[in-house]
């Protein structure tokens, strides 16, 4: 009896929802390449070719600009499903959407960025970001480099310790001081273009590599970035506003969603392990079954936390006052710290359930890549720093 060709059958139709399209790509394109992306620490090129073909890079762009008009709830669900199959694809997708969200919210009233939204749709541009800087480290709310503008032209040079997928990106959003005289905290966000139609405007000189424990396919190398362009490429809103209303909540929600995807897949592998063990010895409960019951509970907790944060953000999405409050910033910081801690605990528990079969890379119960990626959640964006910021805010916030 011939087995049906599942992959061919489930090719997404034109009418498929964005989540259905992403699910198809996650299973049929991202998952088969996930191991080689990780081993070779290479950009998940095949996933992004498929995501582009499906129009998913501009999913957040409103329909009136030709995009899919997705909300953060939709994008979070996509990050979750991508994270279940290839965490690198999910992380790059999340980071790209954080940039798109900033342009959609903070650039809509500027002709240059309205045009860019059309380009995001027609050319499916991939956006990266350069927010950290050598000598200020992870403090993204202060810059050393500054925009130098003359006669409507701008120049900018930044020493960036990390620009994830900088070489593959078509454009990079860069934080910098507004002018060479501005305070370190008076920042703007500048679009540095490097797509084919703007060749030569931006150069990246690599200063550090990315041979890391996990998230190896994000290619998070260090660079000296130099760019020139028009003054119109500065987003009109200040970075403090962009950060608190859009980048911070989008980052913490989308990252948490893809970590949830990693945790979900690890638990699914542990479930499969226990089920197969139960089949081998009918009538007995396998030794790891209790641990599985425990970890499924933890996964539910994590899912509930992510979903409730998304609901809160959606509820006050257009309330600038609420989004710039200390209470909201704390809420998002807590989500980040909690979910990045839970993902490690959950994957560790899955590893304990699957045992040596989980420890090895070449079994269907393997969670070794999951665990290496999970550790990145609390390290790549330091939980120490996030907790430090929360601790300071808690000095003035008296009640919850």
């Amino acid at each position: 009896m011939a087995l049906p060709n599942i992959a061919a059958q489930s090719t997404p139709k034109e009418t498929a929802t964005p989540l259905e399209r992403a699910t198809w790509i996650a299973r049929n394109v991202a998952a088969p390449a996930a191991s080689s992306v990780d081993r070779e620490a290479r950009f998940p090129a095949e996933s992004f070719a498929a995501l582009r073909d499906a129009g998913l890079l501009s999913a957040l762009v409103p329909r009136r600009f030709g995009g899919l008009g997705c909300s953060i709830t939709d994008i979070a669900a996509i990050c979750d499903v991508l994270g279940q199959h290839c965490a690198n694809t999910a992380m790059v997708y999340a980071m790209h959407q954080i940039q798109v969200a900033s342009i959609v919210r903070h650039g809509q009233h500027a002709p240059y960025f309205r045009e860019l939204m059309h380009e995001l749709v027609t050319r499916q541009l991939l956006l990266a970001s350069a927010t950290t800087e050598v000598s200020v480290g992870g403090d993204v709310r202060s810059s050393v480099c500054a925009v130098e503008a003359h006669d409507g032209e701008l120049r900018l040079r930044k020493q960036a310790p990390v620009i994830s997928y900088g070489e593959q990106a078509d454009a990079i959003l860069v934080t910098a001081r507004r002018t060479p005289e501005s305070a370190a905290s008076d920042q703007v966000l500048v679009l540095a273009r490097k797509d084919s139609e703007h060749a030569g405007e931006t150069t990246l000189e690599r200063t550090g590599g990315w041979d890391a424990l996990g998230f190896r396919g994000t290619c998070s190398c260090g660079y000296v970035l130099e760019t020139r362009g028009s003054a119109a490429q500065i987003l009109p809103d200040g970075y403090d506003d962009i950060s608190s209303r859009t980048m911070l909540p989008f980052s913490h929600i989308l990252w948490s969603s893809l970590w949830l995807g990693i945790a979900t897949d690890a638990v699914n592998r542990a479930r499969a392990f226990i089920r197969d063990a139960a089949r081998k010895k009918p009538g007995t409960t396998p030794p790891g079954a209790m641990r599985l019951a425990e970890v499924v509970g933890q996964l539910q907790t994590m899912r509930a936390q992510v979903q409730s944060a998304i609901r809160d953000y959606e509820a006050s999405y257009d309330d600038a006052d609420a989004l710039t409050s200390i209470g909201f910033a704390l809420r998002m910081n807590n989500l980040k710290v909690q979910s990045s801690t839970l993902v490690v605990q959950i994957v560790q528990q899955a590893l304990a359930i699957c045992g040596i079969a989980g420890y090895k890379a070449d079994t269907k119960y393997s969670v070794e890549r999951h665990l290496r990626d999970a550790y990145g959640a609390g390290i790549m964006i330091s939980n120490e720093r996030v907790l430090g910021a929360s601790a300071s805010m808690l000095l003035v916030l008296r009640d919850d």
Partner: protein
Amino acid sequence: MIQDIRSIVHEHARLNVDIAKLADDASLYQAGMTSHASVNLMLALEDAFDVEFPERLLRRRTFESIASIAAALDELLASDRGASAA
């Protein structure tokens, strides 16, 4: 009150411009106040004016400028007076 606020801002907001040259409605954030410094500023204001900022006032806009701080304090002090008169 404005003078008191100015001296507290001078001491705690860690601006990188001369506060004497800063207008009442100029952005303190653009003048170099970080979110960490803004927390210290809030604590110092609470201490000096013997008030507590309720959660609804703990937002960016409240501490945007010397004028916005004065408006928030006016409101808090007025409601305090109202409460003690009652």
